């Protein structure tokens, strides 16, 4: 019997949406990591958290632009938030896209506040009161807690959005949200590792970021295997170039290779602490770039492979 999902039509979500899933994940993940360092980390790691906020706000702005450009009628983007005929707020808690639009808007607000605070802490803005939007302090702690939670939501809801359709692959597994969330965490840690200036490499926070990336990459591998198993017979839809891309691009290049580089480099020691070598200087940045490539390709496979399937 042909699966019922094969009789549905593809929404033609393509590169703009793939890019949004990737960049939105980075926005949410970087904010979450920054908030974690601010709330629980050491004071000397605060510059790393600052980098996280520097990434999160511009990334959420780019996310919004990508989403608006993908609409067939971009000037009506605000219809997602306000019902255009009654001018009442438009929110459907059971529609992932509706909830996600609000989450992205509010997350954008919190990431803007933290962005301003980070600029102030770095001495690039003079208004000292803006520094209050970062921990410690009640206001800053609230920004970090609520923003971090919303960041997680932004990173994960996109997978739930794909599941709440009738398309093959997307609607055949409950694990896309979990996979996107884990991938957002690994790509965000990788991006921060890539952005950290070399003189900070001795910071304990950089050490923790690397360890975090290694653990999350292992989790990601488990999650992708679970995803393929959960698809059941539908996994056969990947017995083609998409499956090859998933195996080579996502699993080997994006997970196994960076893991190997991190292990070679000694993941449990601070990078560059002593005995710096060519290998040591390049292993972490190369691993980070590979993780980012793998994370992007994962979204390419998930979003684009489901478009062409029909009865």
């Amino acid at each position, binding site marked *: *019997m042909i699966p*019922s999902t094969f*009789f*549905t*039509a*593809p*929404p033609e*979500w393509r590169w703009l949406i793939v890019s949004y899933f990737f960049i939105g994940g980075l926005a949410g993940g970087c904010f979450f*990591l920054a908030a*974690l*360092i601010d709330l*629980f*980390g*050491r004071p000397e*790691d605060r510059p790393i958290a600052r980098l996280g906020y520097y990434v999160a706000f511009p990334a959420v702005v780019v996310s919004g632009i990508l989403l608006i450009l*993908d*609409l*067939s*009628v*971009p000037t*009506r*983007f605000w*219809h*997602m938030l306000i*019902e*255009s*005929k009654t001018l009442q707020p438009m929110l*459907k808690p*059971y*529609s*992932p*896209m509706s909830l996600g639009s609000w989450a992205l808007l509010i997350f954008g607000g919190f990431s803007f506040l933290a962005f301003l605070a980070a600029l102030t802490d770095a001495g690039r803005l003079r208004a000292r009161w803006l520094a209050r939007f970062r921990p410690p302090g009640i206001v800053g702690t609230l920004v970090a807690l609520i923003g971090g939670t919303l960041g997680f939501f932004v990173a*994960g*809801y996109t*997978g*739930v959005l794909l*599941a*709440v359709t*009738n*398309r093959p692959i*997307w*609607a055949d597994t*409950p*694990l*896309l*949200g*979990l996979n996107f*969330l*884990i991938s957002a*965490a690994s790509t965000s840690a990788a991006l921060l590792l890539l952005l950290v200036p070399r003189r900070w490499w001795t910071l304990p*926070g950089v050490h*923790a970021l690397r*360890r*975090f990336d290694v*653990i*999350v990459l292992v*989790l990601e591998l488990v*999650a992708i295997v679970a995803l393929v198993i959960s698809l059941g017979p539908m996994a056969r839809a990947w017995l083609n170039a998409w499956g090859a891309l998933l195996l080579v691009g996502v699993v080997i290049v994006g997970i196994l290779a960076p893991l190997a580089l991190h292990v070679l480099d000694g993941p449990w020691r601070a990078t560059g602490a002593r005995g710096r070598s060519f290998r040591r200087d390049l292993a972490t940045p190369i691993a980070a770039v590979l993780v980012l490539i793998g994370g992007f390709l994962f979204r390419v496979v998930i979003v684009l492979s489901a478009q062409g399937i*029909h*009865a």
Partner: protein
Amino acid sequence: MPEPMGFFTDTTVCIGCKACEVACKEWNQLPAANGGVTTMSGDSYDNTRRLDGIHWRHVKFVEQFTPDRTDGRWLLMSDVCKHCVRAGCLEVCPTGAIIRTEFDTVVIQSDVCNGCRDCISACPFGVIGINPVSGAAQKCTLCYDRLQAGMQPACSQACPTASIQFGTVAHLKQTAAARVEQLHGRGERRAHLYGADDKMLGGLNAFYLLVDKPEVYGLPPDPQLPTRNLGRSSLWTVLGAAIVGLVGLFNFRGRRARVEAGREREAA
């Protein structure tokens, strides 16, 4: 409040004249496909191929022939939006563009829709598409404008064989049941109704009489609501968030936590 209205499409009397397609396009001022340049499917008399934003009625041609073509039959079905009682498109629409009308039909307001295309992937039947003129997702409205004026939809009025029947859903169900009985009595045992009872998405207000499996007509055998996946998918995502959150917490827990632990130890 008017009664729920719908279509009963009896595929056994459809002759494939496509008057419904033409009437629908004329009344709803739907543009020609491909800028008016004729494109042939090449393997069928059915050149419309599927429902989309500019084809709200589609006469599906199913050509069942033996390999040597000595025996065979045509199955013809005028397909349309099912106006599901529990509509997946209506559930996911984030703008509120998709509404349920007083006639219990499902209508997309093309001046509200912003073209996010979530409904296209949510529809279990692949009915909805983007209309390139409006940019909005569009589909059959069951001629909402004509219904409000007390008229019947353009397609059912144009249908010369009463394959498309319009009326109250309750009345159509009676008509359909009688027709199935009549066909069974005459030996067409394969005749059955698709979507007439409320087991399928709460009932399809546009339902069909078929003489083969639904798949043969391009209809899903077991259409489901997209929101069936919402709970499970959210739960797994929250679990993922908890795991990643804990991994992060234990990794980045710094001096502050250690100082507190030291204080606790001193207190003890």
